[in-house]
């Protein structure tokens, strides 16, 4: 009920009828109650389209998340002016596979966007994501650059370190929000996975988030809660992240993992780097806030 109320505020604010900023009042415990049992599915394969759809099978397939007529947001990492093999952005074929599945499940529109770090046109082009989606030539797919006018200030009433930030309207209003980060190294956060990928839908001076990154990310992820997290570990960046640049830092795994629980997905992906989930501060803080499960033993892990 509370989320619906929040979305109503977003709609009212963005249409300019009311000037009161939307207030997000949902507490993390309520979010935890919303969470389904942490089932997590991992797969390996060379054909990424087949891989994505088989990884989603144990979760009930894409239809468990995308209902006919839904407005779907697929949020890859398109942050950097890097080529697909350099592992700084989500692999274009993974993006394409997810978008295709969403459309097959009856999505009305599928929006793909990211607030980039390098120049947006260079990122969209050189990541291979815009070319591959444009080639699909479907009116339902909207691979557009971020529109500055669509950032809406949100008061995060129950946030611990962040109480106000602006969010992208389309991300807030999506019927189904699918987060598809790429798994890679990051200097400050050690790794950047699903929770950190949310930084691509927020406005403002993002550098400030770094001051108390883990708690800030957890607070942001209470507002943007991914219905489904698919982590692209087809190739992972081991060093010099988050943008890399050298193929020497890239390890090819041909793996994809998926979970409706964003914390569980991050926790498992951490192990691919030879690290323990506890070593990633943002996973720990998010689990503590009740955003999801980080104990690998308490997850229902399915290998496909």
């Amino acid at each position, binding site marked *: 009920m509370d989320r619906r109320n929040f979305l109503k505020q977003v709609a009212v604010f963005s249409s300019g009828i009311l000037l009161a900023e939307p207030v997000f009042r949902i507490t993390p415990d309520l979010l935890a109650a919303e969470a389904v049992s942490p089932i997590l599915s991992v797969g390996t394969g060379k054909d990424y389209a087949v891989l994505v759809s088989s990884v989603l099978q144990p979760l009930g397939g894409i239809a468990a998340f995308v209902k006919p007529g839904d407005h779907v947001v697929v949020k890859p990492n398109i942050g950097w002016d890097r080529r697909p093999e350099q592992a700084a952005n989500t692999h274009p074929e993974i993006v394409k596979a997810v978008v295709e599945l969403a459309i097959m499940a009856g999505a009305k529109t599928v929006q793909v966007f990211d607030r980039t770090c390098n120049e947006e046109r260079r990122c969209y082009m050189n990541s291979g994501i815009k070319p591959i989606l444009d080639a699909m030539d479907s009116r339902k797919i909207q691979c557009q650059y971020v529109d500055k006018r669509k950032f809406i200030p949100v008061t995060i009433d129950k946030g611990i370190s962040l109480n106000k930030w602006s969010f992208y309207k389309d991300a807030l209003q999506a019927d189904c929000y699918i987060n598809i980060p790429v798994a890679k190294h990051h200097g400050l956060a050690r790794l950047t996975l699903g929770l950190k990928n949310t930084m691509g839908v927020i406005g403002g001076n993002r550098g400030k988030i770094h001051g108390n990154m883990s708690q800030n990310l957890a607070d942001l992820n209470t507002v943007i809660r991914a219905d489904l997290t698919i982590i692209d570990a087809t190739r992972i960046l081991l060093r010099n992240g988050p943008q890399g640049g*050298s193929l020497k830092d890239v390890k090819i795994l041909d793996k994809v993992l998926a979970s409706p629980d964003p914390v569980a997905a991050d926790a498992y992906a951490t192990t691919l780097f030879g690290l323990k989930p506890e070593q990633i501060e943002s996973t720990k803080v998010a689990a503590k806030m009740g955003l999801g499960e980080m104990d690998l033993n308490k997850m229902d892990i399915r290998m496909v």
Partner: protein
Amino acid sequence: MTVKFTLRTCRKLFQVLFFFLFLLLFRLTEYSGLDEIPYAVNIFFRWDPLVAATVLLATKSFVSLLLPSLAIIALTIIFGRIFCGWICPMGSLLDWAGKLIHPSLRPTPSLRSVKYILLTIILISSFFELQLVGFFDPFSILVRGITIGLDPAFYLLVSGFFDPIYSYAPQWISNLSEPIYTVLKDSVLPYKQSFFLLSTLSASILIAVVAMEKLGKRFWCRNLCPLGALLAIVSRFSIFRRFPGRSCRDCQHCAPSCRMDAFDPESRRIRHEECNLCMDCVDNCVNQSSRFRFLLPDKQLQINIGRRAFIGAGIAGITLPLLSQVNAGTRLPHPTLLRPPGAAGEAEFFSKCVRCGECMKVCIQNALQPCFMESGYEGMFTPKLIPRLGYCELNCTLCGQVCPTGAINKLSQQEKKNFVIGIAVFNNARCLPFADHSPCIVCEEHCPTNDKAIKFKEVTVINSQGKSIDLQQPYLIPELCVGCGICENKCPLPGHSAIQVLSTRTTSEEDEYGLSKSLSKQKSQITFHV
């Protein structure tokens, strides 16, 4: 209504065509999704013989990029100043502006010599390596005025109309307005809002040139344009001329209304070098006797700029470079003056840069900005990189591609990645992990070099509350830094960044006891990381 297809109609069509081409190329001076711009968007500068002449004189070397200027010289040798009348977008703009603001005066023909004086000063001073062409070349004035001033203002005007509708008007209105906005964005508008220093000054110079039209038809072209003067001199040899070479005795049709005032009032002879072949006199002739045809140059009126004026211009052309060279600014280092990637050494850069603004137009991050007085008046409108406004994208090579004279060298992607614009320097008194003991390293995250120039060390510090905390503190490895400035740009501190890119370029003669001037020039100060 029937439209008679006359020579004049033909000329007008050409004018529209070339003006459209000019605008089209201007719009195409933009990242298109490809690393290379596939069109010669800078062609209007590359076929400009005045640009070619001054660059040739200043660098004492041949710049192959400027070869197309020979085509305009050839055209002028055959047809005279047809370039001024049929092709030049500035001339067309003035013709159309004149229709609106009705030139009221008839300036004295003696003003004509001003353009030759200007030309003399520009050519002679360029030989002594003072490049003034950018202040007077019509395309420099035009492109700069549009790029730096009018184009961003145009975007602001349009977005200032549509954005409030989107934000505040009822949904159904914005449902109507947004598709129009999208069409405009895809056609006439630049990709995004850009911001430039000297926006008012640059646009005002262009507007002033247009406003001069009030003083007389084609006031700029007749009296001031140094390119027009150069073409006028060349056109004295041209073989396509008006016949008869005089206006008729009692007929008042062509001479008084001539847009270039090309008829000598006493002898009634046409000053062929002033004629821009607009074809008005052909179409207006009641006797149908006036026409253009191939004719050998005969005895003609001399260009009379006056011996004293000529000598004066020559002295000015020598004195101005001398004065510039004794400006103490040339001896001072300019640590915050960052030149674009691929920029030649400062002396060569000054000789080649014609202040056209193409690099600023194409810069994908709006990082290149016009200088004001940082490097003297001589360097006004030359490009500089201001990282706090926009950084240099590591994989982008567009500025070198559009530079018409090679002042900014065209770099391959690999060369670009290793080109050193400057070196970043930390200010630990402001940098958060040092000064405030709070985590940050946003600079390290964004550092794009492969093997990052910014690294961090893990330290344990006692913070201001007396608590022991683990922290990452950044530091720079100068040998890896290329000075792209993304660190300075993204530093989350308000105001000054805690990391700043400083120029590593040397001033022209930093060490008087080593290399001779010519030597140090050849060994241009481009540094590459190998």
